[in-house]
């Protein structure tokens, strides 16, 4: 979800249609995915580009 939203610049509705999931699920997966990503990056000691 994150990679499609960010790298392919798709909208929430487009990602929902593409993956056949509700828009709310796109939002929550995006949010929890980013959170998980932040935790993993913090664990590796990366806090900025």
């Amino acid at each position, binding site marked *: 979800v*994150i*990679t*499609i*939203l*960010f*790298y*392919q*610049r*798709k*909208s*929430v*509705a*487009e990602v929902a249609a*593409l*993956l*056949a999931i509700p828009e*709310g699920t*796109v*939002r*929550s997966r*995006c*949010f*929890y*995915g*980013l*959170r*998980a*990503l*932040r935790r*993993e*990056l913090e664990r*590796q000691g*990366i*806090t*900025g*580009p």
Partner: protein
Amino acid sequence: MNCQMMTSLGVYVLGAAEPAERRSVEAHLPGCPSCRAELIRLAPIPGLLASVPPGAVRQRTTPPVAVATDGSSWMGRLRSAEGSRRARIGGIVTALAASIAVAVGVVLGASSRPVPGGHSAVLLSGMNAATHVRSTAALTRSSWGTSIRLTIRGAPLNVRCRLVVRSRAGGTETAGVWDAWREGPITVPASAGWRASDIASLQVVARGRTLVTINAPRHARANRSAARRL
């Protein structure tokens, strides 16, 4: 999670929220300390993602044991992996984090970076001699308006910056919010509800002061080769 607006922050910070959702997030933020705190924690992620070549992410995040249903698209493979998705999410996150770790090491400081997706982009730039802030914006058409990739140099460290977009018709939108997390050039994603040709200017504002203004000439043209030089 203690606020139902919080799940919108993910698409908001990626610049993928549509204008109505972006406005509702912005209307909500001043009154919600927990969402503000969460947004600040997520703020560096788009810059980190932008430092990863998309091809590297695609390779590393495709689950190796997932069988392609259509034999072609990686998204098809992701869809087909839905059944055992949860077991893999940790692995995908780790792989994406690893891609970022590699990119931060390899790409940092590189002056040449393709616009993701390779679409033709309108390139604009501006500088402010008083604040010593310079900025370049690549505007790409999207289904909801315009995707903006803003590169900014010289912004004060750890200060909340906003990108304010003005339309030729006189409207304004906040297209993105971020904290300048390092002194070198940073790239932030943003989006506006207007087409690129309807955008008159972009302004980076911090603490009520305009750091830099980028004016869009009326006949700015999409330029694929210029986009590569960004």
